[in-house]
Structures are given as C-alpha cells and as structure tokens.
C-alpha cells in the first residue's frame, strides 16, 4: 500500500474454546480515513476490534501502530496508546453530568482539588466542536440517546486519540442523528484520525466510508475501496456460500380453512403501544418488519403479557384470555423468546438442563417438580433435536456460544409445547449456520401446526420465512402484506411511506 498506514494488523489469530474466532486476518487503517469493518454476526468483527483494544489476546499475529509494534493488554492500555472505542451500548453513568462523564477518571486538578470550572468549560468547548450546544452541567440522562452517544464519542476523542473505533454507534439513532454523527466523523477524519466503523447498515457504509474490510467466519474476505464495489457484491461476499442453506428453505403451507389461533382487538398499554389488531392462523408464520423501536418488540411483549395490557382483548384458540403476566400467557400456551438473550433469556449459572426445564416447571408450579429423569430426557431430546453443541446437559448455559444459547432458549419454549411461539430477533448475534438452523426449526414447527410470530431486522429473512408480514412504524402497524411475492423494496416502501391501497396488488 503506497499510503502511510496508521495501523497494521497482520496475521491475527485468536482461538476460543472449540472455535477459531480469527484465522490469519490482516487489517490496515490509514490516518484520515473511515474504514468500515463488515461481516455477518459472528464473522469476527468484534473479536478483531477487541483484540486491538486489549480485551482479547492474540494467539498469533502482530499489530503495528504508527510503525511500532504494540500489544495492548487491556482497554485502558489501548486507550492510553491512543486507541479509543465507543461501544454500541452507552458506557456512561446516567446520573453524572455531561461534563463529569467526559472527564471522569481524568479530572483536571487544581491545588489537589477537582477544577470544576475547567471541566465545565472544556466540556462545553468539546461539545460545541460537535455543534452541540447543550448544558454540560445537567445529568446525562436528561438527554436523548443520540446526545449520549455523542458524549461518549466526545469522551473518546478528547484524549489524544489517533484511532477511534465505533462499534455499531448508529443502531439506536434516527436519521437526523445519524447525519450529525457522520458530520462529526468527517471532521475527525479531516483532522487526521483513523476511524474504524462497524455497522450493519450498508447504506451508511456507502455514505461515509473510504474503504471497507469484509470478514466471514473469522477469515478475511478482502479489503476494498468504496468506489470499486457494489452493494450486491458486498452482500454476496459477506454471506458467502452459506446462502444456499437459507435459500433452500421453504415457507410453511397454511391451509385456507386453518382455525384462527390468536386475535387481538385494540390491545394496548398506554405509553408502550396501543391499538394492536392482529389475527393469526394455526400454523401460520407472521413476520414483524420495521426499524428498531418501531413497536415490534412492544407488540410481542403485550401479547405475551411481559407488559400487561390495559385495554383491548386477546383471544387465543377462540377463547378470550386475560394475560397480566408471562405465566398467564404460558398457561394459554404462548411462548416468547425475547430479543435480549443475555438479559431476558438465559439463566447464566444454571445448567442447560435446568434452563430447558424452566418454563415448563414454572407452568407446573414448584410443588410439582419435573423429576430428574424427565429433565434429563427433555434435555437429551432437545440437545439432539436442535443439535446444541455441548459435551453434556450439565454445562452452564452461560458457557455456550450465542447460537447455542439461543437454541437452549428455543428448547425451553418447545418443551412447553406452545400453540404460539413469538421469536424476537432470534437470529441476531449468532453465526450463519445456527441462523439457518433456527429458521429451519421455525418453519418445521409451523408445519406441525404451531403459529409463529417472527421479529427480525433483516428483511430478507422475514420475506423468506413469513406467510404474512406486518410492517410497523412509530409504534403503529402501517401495513400488512403476503410473504409470497413480497420484495425488500415493497417492505422498505411501506416502512418509509406507509401502505397505499394499490401497493400490495
């Protein structure tokens, strides 16, 4: 490469128990460029970044930073070398002020005391550099997610950072906020900073990046200049040959006279979502499409009683039900795999067996325990059926990979033999193989007469599997189309403009 590289990573290898997370990956970053790091979930993007920030330690390979070899041992270490990271989740203290958040841990001192005046002026200067005129003495949680994100970027660049890593910073931002962020990124780039940008939004890559590097299953696919690649090429390279597995999946058949399994009328919880009207047949797979925060999860939570409904009615298998809490839903044979697997799904320290038996046990009540023999049978059955990769059923679920954890949660619900299974982003953050398997399972269950609600941010996945697709925007249902013959463009149009009567014809 003719130009001077700020950062050179060569032959990076990282071995995790059972998998090679990175295999001889090269990556370079120039000063004054925005470089996208792309790949499917589990491709190794975060691993590569974490290796740079000292969270993971390389088994092989070298990192040259400014021509010198470095080996960061911890995020603090990397930070002090000039490598700053902004993570997807905001790592700030919501109850501290904006200024305190920016300077926490490195407050300017005067006579052995914290110089508050200095902190506040400097924070104000820093924020105005990002064209943000906000009161830095107010607590952070007074501000929107976007501003909080800006604050974490401000914190990251205030030290003499040469490399800034942005790990999916835009996933919780709206369009205007994204624009604001891009302006800041361009300014930082003009100042000579090298920016690594991880995102799932391909449009954003083309909008702001100079080069991009694609990873797949822990290996390097290649590094390209943005002018020399099309979106289609990009997607093909990201997904690779595994596409076949998914493309061979077939939508479930729903008989025309299949009975109605779920009906909601004006179901709602003020402040969350209101006027949810859905009708789902037995064995039907309904996809929920829409952007993050469009109300997909809220709808699912409402149906399942994770958030109690304050108004409207819910009918399951022809019977009106009152669902005030999850156990009511479980008793009505509903099941719900939540979006945030770590927070709402797994019981980390319990074994696979205990995790699988949990919902069934909850339905029975603790005074009617599932015998050890039954539990073992359940565990064995689902480990085999879902090909969960584990040496035995007594392994803690927290020690499994994301995809396998997801399968265990799925098993937990399959064990309750539900009539309706709600899956909220079941394929997020898991590798492509597990993804294909989960989609296959979903469709098989439909074939056996289970109704499924499938929430996903990936439109192609929704279109591939769904019989019907409900499109949501701003916490409202804005359209409903048949899965058959639907294209991404149709869905995008509905998401953007709502459904016109002739659009579905």
């Amino acid at each position, binding site marked *: 490469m003719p130009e001077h590289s700020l950062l050179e990573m060569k032959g990076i290898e990282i071995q995790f128990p059972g998998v090679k997370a990175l295999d001889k990956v090269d990556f370079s970053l120039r000063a004054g460029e925005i470089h996208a790091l792309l790949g499917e979930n589990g491709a190794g993007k975060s691993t590569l970044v974490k290796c740079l920030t000292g969270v993971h330690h390389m088994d092989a390979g070298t990192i040259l930073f400014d021509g010198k070899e470095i080996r960061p041992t911890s995020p603090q270490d990397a930070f002090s070398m000039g490598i700053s990271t902004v993570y997807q989740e905001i790592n700030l203290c919501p109850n501290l002020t904006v200024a305190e958040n920016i300077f926490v841990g490195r407050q300017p001192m005067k006579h052995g005391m914290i110089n508050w005046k200095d902190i506040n002026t400097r924070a104000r200067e820093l924020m105005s550099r990002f064209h943000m005129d906000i009161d830095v003495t107010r607590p952070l949680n007074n501000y929107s997610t976007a501003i909080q994100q800006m604050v974490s970027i401000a914190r990251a660049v205030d030290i003499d950072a040469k490399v800034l890593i942005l790990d999916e910073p835009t996933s919780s931002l709206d369009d205007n906020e994204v624009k604001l962020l891009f302006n800041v990124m361009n300014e930082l780039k003009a100042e000579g900073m090298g920016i690594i940008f991880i995102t799932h939004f391909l449009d954003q890559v083309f909008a702001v990046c100079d080069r991009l590097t694609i990873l797949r299953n822990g290996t390097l696919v290649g590094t390209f200049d943005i002018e020399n690649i099309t979106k289609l090429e990009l997607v093909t390279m990201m997904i690779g040959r595994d596409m076949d597995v998914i493309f061979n999946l077939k939508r479930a058949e729903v008989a025309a006279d299949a009975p109605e399994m779920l009906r909601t009328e004006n179901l709602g919880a003020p402040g969350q979502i209101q006027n949810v009207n859905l009708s789902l047949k037995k064995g039907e797979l309904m996809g929920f499409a829409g952007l993050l925060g469009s109300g997909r999860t809220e709808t699912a939570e409402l149906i399942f009683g994770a958030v109690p409904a304050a108004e409207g009615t819910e009918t399951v298998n022809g019977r009106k039900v009152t669902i005030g809490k999850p156990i009511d839903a479980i008793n009505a044979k509903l099941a719900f795999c939540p979006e945030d697997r770590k927070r709402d799904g797994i019981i980390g320290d*319990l074994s696979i067996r205990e995790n699988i038996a949990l919902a069934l*046990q909850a339905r029975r009540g603790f005074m*009617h325990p599932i015998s050890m023999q039954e539990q073992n049978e359940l565990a064995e059955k689902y480990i085999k059926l879902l090909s969960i990769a584990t040496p035995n059923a007594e392994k803690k679920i927290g020690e499994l990979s994301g995809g396998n954890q997801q399968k265990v949660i799925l098993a937990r619900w399959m064990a309750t033999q539900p009539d309706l299974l709600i899956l909220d982003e079941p394929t997020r953050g898991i590798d492509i193989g597990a993804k294909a398997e989960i989609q296959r399972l979903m469709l098989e269950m439909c074939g056996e007469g289970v109704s499924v609600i499938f929430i996903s941010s990936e439109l192609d996945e929704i279109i591939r599997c769904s019989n019907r697709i409900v499109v949501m925007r701003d916490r409202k249902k804005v359209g409903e189309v048949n899965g058959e013959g639907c294209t991404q463009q149709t869905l995008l149009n509905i998401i953007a403009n709502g459904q016109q009567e002739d659009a579905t014809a």
Partner: protein
Amino acid sequence: MKKKNVSLSGIMQSKITWAVVAELLILLVCFLIRPDFFSIKYQPATGMLYGSLIDILNRSAEITIISMGMTLVIALGGTDLSVGSLVALSGALALKFLRWDVLIYNTPGDYTVKPFILVILVPLAVCTLMGLFNGFMISRIGMQPIIATLILMVCGRGIAQIVTNGKQFTTLYSPFRVIGQGSFLFLPMPVIISIIVVAAVSIFVRKTAFGTMVESVGINPSASRLSGIDSRRIIMIVFALTAFLSAIAGLITASRVMSNDSNNFGINFEMDAILAVVIGGTNMAGGKFSLAGTVIGSIIIRTIVTFVYYFGIVSEATMAFKALIIIVVIVLQSEPVRKRMSKMGKKRMKGGAVHA
C-alpha cells in the same frame, strides 16, 4: 450430620470441601493443644452426652436454623437483617404467654398458662407475619432487601419491649424448658431441632423445584419472570420462611435461659447467619446456593467461639480471633486459591498416573 448434608446437595462441592478442611484444621489445632477436646461423656442424670463437640453443635443450633433461611435470602441476591430482632421478639412473645398472670393481673402467683401450644404457635405465627411484611416491602413496594429488613431490625426490638411492657420475665415452666435444655436420643434438643430444620428445608428446596426457582430469580430476575416464574411469590415465601426459622431460634434462646431479654437476644445473629452462608460457599450476589455449606459455615463460627472459651483466651479477643479465622477460611475458598489448589492436584494426579 455433616456427611449426610454434603450428599443432600452436591453443589459447590469444591467450596464445601474447603470449608470442611478449614473446620477440620481448627479441630486439629484444638486436639493438638488439648487431646481431651474430643472427649464425649455420657451423663446418666440428664440422659445427655457432654463434650466440646456436642457443645459446638448445641450452641450453633440457632445460627444453623436461621441461616437455612438466610441461604435462600442470599441466593435471591438479598440479605435479611431482621433475624436477630425477630429472635428477641419471639422470645418476648413466648414469655408473655408463659407469664400471662403477671401481665394481666400484675400479681405474681401460679402461672395461668394458656394451652401450652399457644406459647409456641403465637411467636411462630407473629414472626412469620413479620417475614411476610419484609417480603411485601421487597416484592411489591420494590424496596431493597437490606433496607426493608433494616426497618424490622431497628423496630423489632422495640416491638418486643412493647409486648412485655419493657419487663423481663423468668419462668420455671418445665415443658418450655425442654426446647432449649431437653434431650432426645442422648443429644441436646436444640441439636435435634436443627437437624430436623436442616432436613426439612433441604427436602423442601431440593425435592421440589423451589430451590432452582430461587437460584433462577437470584441469577436473572428478568429472564425468570419471562419464563413464567412468579418471583414475588418466591420472595414472600423465602422471607416468611426466614422469619419463621428466626422464631424457632428465638424459642430455643429463650428456653435456654428461661427468660426474655429484648436487648440482648439475637444480638449479631444476622451477621453470624450471613457469615455462615458466605463461608458455606454461597455468593452474596445471589444464584447458586448450598445448604450443606451453610451448615458447615455455622459450625465453623461456633467452633471458633468454643475454641476461644475453651482455651481461656481473653474474651475481649474473641471477635478479633473470629475475624482472623474467617479471613483464612474465605481466602482458602477464594477463586484464585482454589484454582491453584486444583492445578496442584491435577499435577499430582498426572505424576500418579505415570507410576501406575
């Protein structure tokens, strides 16, 4: 007793092992200094066995009983500070009913004890209600357990004072004496009661799915709720159970001295119970718990105290001495030490394999 409990729940095996090792080490030191530490004599007059070991089991009974509940509280990620005050309250209630005459007629005379069973049942019932109050504040009002139980910790002794009009009673009523001073199968009654409690709680927790649900809520409340577990109910039951067990401990304490003393009964019991749980290998952050470990923890605490008394160490030093040994036990159990030990164990095994 120890052995039996280890088999009752095999969880946290390694931590229990280290607690047992610590206990054995302390006993070994006792033995080396005075070989008669282990002697156990039978006294025909009372039909009971006597000796330091018996004394350790006897005197640890209250903490063992309370800490069965405390284990579950801690497994839920909480703490219960009110147990000591409930011990005092339970004792006060029992003595109030034993000395109804003095209270009502203000004339000491022959005791007019209501049906004796009331003397037992009322303290148990009242304390259980108090526990439900704790559970209510935590699960419905959303208070942190440490704060919610702090309320009762502070005012529980006050209530106990009110119950007895601030008076201290003594009684000679012999059926009541049995609880703390009687014997059964050559063992002091408190030992028998604690064995029954440990067995009952273990069976309840491990033979039903209650234990798993407690762990589940302690590890991840949100995921547990979405899996259909009614965590509020679990919390109510656990705090009520702990209060109930504290009441039992209170009856034993009161029966030992045949009196009530709202200012001194159960002092520091909450700390000893928490300590027993922690020594037993249950993490204060909640999650997996071990009742067997807790039993050993309770015995270790009592062994230390007995050791101090037995060897005539000045009583002012008891606390410091206790702290010292507990630090050693906790360090022995800590993650790094256990890892190193198990590594050393593996190496030795490898060496052995070569010889074989």
